């Protein structure tokens, strides 16, 4: 793990990169990283996040700035800008059931090729997917998802990079922290080693590549 500035961290992300961003309706999203992505105007991003948040908040900022070319999410209904950009074909959108989305990301992080889920069988979600029967019950084969970068927000990070999360700000963050080539983390508080008890660490330090340092 390396502690770096937010400018340096975002400079590593090329235009057009695939980027997972933690958070759920802007809760538990690494806002400082997104502000810097906007400032450095990283265009054409392939975004993977639970939702599109709302304008001005969380990943919503990326739609405000027109930086997203493709979105994989479970819900975008509360962001009119993302909806407009989708309907105007400015961004391609893959809408995926939330439980399927998180399992696909988990599979990507855990070295699984995919999972079999009952969700979506018999609906439009099943179109183009392999359907597999197990003991007479139908499941969709949903494949693993990974990204080049994961932008993660934690509550506590220790000097080694161990992370813990607070309340509902945990959401997709720990799963995404396993599923990208490069994991960049912001934390509410950076604390000495040992402040987070071993049983309370949610994301082990070796998963974290970069921690945004205090200024």
């Amino acid at each position, binding site marked *: 793990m390396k502690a770096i500035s937010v400018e340096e961290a975002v400079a590593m992300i090329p235009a057009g990169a695939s980027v997972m961003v933690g958070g*759920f*309706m*802007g*809760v*538990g999203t690494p806002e400082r990283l997104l502000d810097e992505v906007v400032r450095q105007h990283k265009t054409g991003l392939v975004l993977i996040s*639970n*939702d599109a*948040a*709302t304008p001005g908040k969380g990943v919503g900022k990326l739609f405000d700035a027109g930086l997203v070319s493709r979105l994989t*999410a*479970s*819900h*975008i*209904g*509360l962001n009119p800008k993302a*909806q407009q950009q*989708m*309907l105007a074909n400015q961004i391609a959108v893959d*809408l995926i*059931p*939330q*439980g*399927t989305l*998180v*399992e696909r990301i*988990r599979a990507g992080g855990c070295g699984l090729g995919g999972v079999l*889920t*009952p*969700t*979506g*069988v*018999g*609906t*439009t*979600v099943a179109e183009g997917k392999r359907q597999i029967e197990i003991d007479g019950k139908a499941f969709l084969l949903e494949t693993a998802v990974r990204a080049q970068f994961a932008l993660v927000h934690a*509550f506590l990070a220790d000097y080694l990079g161990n992370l813990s*999360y*607070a*309340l*509902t*700000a*945990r*959401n*997709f*963050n*720990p*799963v995404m922290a396993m599923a990208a080539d490069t994991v960049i983390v912001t934390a509410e508080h950076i604390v000495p080693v040992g402040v987070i008890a071993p049983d309370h660490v*949610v994301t082990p330090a070796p998963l974290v590549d970069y921690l945004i340092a205090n200024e």
Partner: protein
Amino acid sequence: MDAQEIIGRRVARELRTGHLVNLGIGIPTLVANYVPSDIKVFFQSENGLIGTGPIPEQGMAHPHLTDAGGRPISALPGACTFDSAMSFGLIRGGHLDVTVLGGLQVDAEGHLANWMIPGKMVPGMGGAMDLVSGAKRVIVAMQHAAKGKSKIVRKCTLPLTSSRIIDLVVTDIAVIGFPDGKAMLMETAPGVTVAEVMAVTEAELVIPDTVPEMTI
């Protein structure tokens, strides 16, 4: 009593002590207000919490503690938090006793459509498909009709949320179940007759000999 309160009160009567329950956005959210004080249920918010409490008092909201719509909530003593993989493991794995969702259409076979109107409203299904596929019981809480049009239809014309047959629909005028895969009128709202329900319902309803009045 307005339509929403009738629905909320009637759905609340389906809950039992110890149940793990997920309430969708809109009318389903209201159910929490009508749970009898002697019934202790666990409410799950799919963004990662069991033990959701009411809106916090002025000045106590924490930006890291919200419902699935991003609105501040509180947590009751004994609450627990987890990541989205665990949250949907609970939902898809059959650990959720009851999910209460809104609906756009429910058809005579018990299929639910509630996540999109092609060409008009494409917000994404969020957790709805997992909830309907995975919960032990699926209860749809919605107005019986919208703009004068029955939402209990012969066959869903909107894309389905799941191929799974739902368990119960509670509307402002009726309770409908699906024994044997056919819509059956189980109860009517106070002051509403069976004939009145039939008149505003597109789907064919099985009508038992006696249709009790909702207790709310």
